[in-house]
């Protein structure tokens, strides 16, 4: 069994969906620092995805410092590190702006959006 679940949706690249699922599992505590992370082979077989895609997922997760490869052991989940300036900027400006624009387009009230954010924040910890 692999320690996170993915329900694949059409039209979004597979690797993005899996990386999102991994992040969600880490944030919700289902995957914790030091936990073993599945190998390329396990992921490919369990999720029935292309091994090249599974390889890409591992490479990207290592790049984002979410997992690290321990020679002889395999991959483990890293400590949730401090975000780089660039990552903070992406969330606080770019992503927040997108969210606000979408919300206003759909005439969602500011209070409602903040409440929703607070709800999700609570789920993440």
């Amino acid at each position, binding site marked *: 069994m692999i320690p996170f679940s993915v329900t*694949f949706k*059409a*039209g*979004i*690249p*597979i*690797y993005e969906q899996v990386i999102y699922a991994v992040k969600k599992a880490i944030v919700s505590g289902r995957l914790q620092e030091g936990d073993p992370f599945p190998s390329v*082979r396990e992921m*490919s*077989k369990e*999720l*029935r*995805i*292309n*091994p*090249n*895609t599974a390889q890409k997922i591992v490479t990207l997760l290592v790049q984002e410092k979410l997992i690290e490869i321990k020679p002889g052991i395999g991959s483990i989940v890293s400590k949730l590190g401090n975000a780089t300036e660039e990552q903070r900027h992406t969330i606080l400006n770019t992503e927040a702006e997108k969210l606000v624009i979408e919300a206003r*387009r759909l005439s969602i009230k500011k209070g409602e959006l903040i409440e929703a954010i607070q709800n999700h924040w609570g789920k993440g910890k």
Partner: protein
Amino acid sequence: MEYVITTEQLTKRFGKQVAINNLTLNIPTGCIFAFLGPNGAGKTTTIKALMNILSPNAGTSTVFGVDSRKLSPTEFAQIGYVSENQELPLWMKTGYFLNYCKSFYPTWDDGFCQQLLKQFDIPLDKKLKSLSRGMRMKAALVSSLAYRPKLLVLDEPFSGLDPLVREEFVSGILEVTETENWTIFISSHDVDEVERLADRVGIIDKGALMVNENIEELQCRFRWVEVTLGEAPAGAVSFPAEWLAAEQKGRAVRFVDTQYQEDAGQQRIRSLLPACTDIAAQGMSLREIFVVLAKQFKQSNS
């Protein structure tokens, strides 16, 4: 890039019927290639020409860099081939059949064969004749995987198999990907089954290749787009060629953008439809892309 399979203007006719028409197709080593197309599109004919079962009327094809018409046992020993309507020696018991196959392949791996038999739950002491269709296909797959081929060719492997057997089949296929420089060529009309598995897709219709591309790239450039216009246009709106299935009704315009890009795509839509007030772009599944392309192809042919 290294190619395991190439075809160059391959053409095969059966009487007046053109089965494949000037097909040029390159498949890089190390990928899982899904060869998709409706029934009668020319998938099996292409595979048979590649495997030297049929000889083409024009053009050439190569496998492992060797002309298909000159393939020798050296190459065949590295190719696994399972076809939907493969003829098996039905009078043989499964164990006997596998032993018989083993004698042809120097790289036959007994341990791996045992592992697959266990995984697939295949009885060794029954005649192939008495096995179900699913079991027989699994036995055929074991006989083609056990020597860890560098190229696995599967012609409609999933048709007529129940979901559980399909799942087993896929995990069996993924077992060979441990082999170095493996390549898998799967033909199917079942788009959903191969969507996650393949990293490259070729779409063929009426013997001609419509797409040969990395799946991720393909999915990145195809979007269902719905545009809302500020006011309904007076005359007919003209659409660029890369917008397929384009329709306009009142203030709504709907089309499939085949060259979509995150920001530049939106800008381009705005410049072509200046009255637009809202753009909603949605990703598409491989099945949806396939259907749109097939319809387009039908239209442009008639």
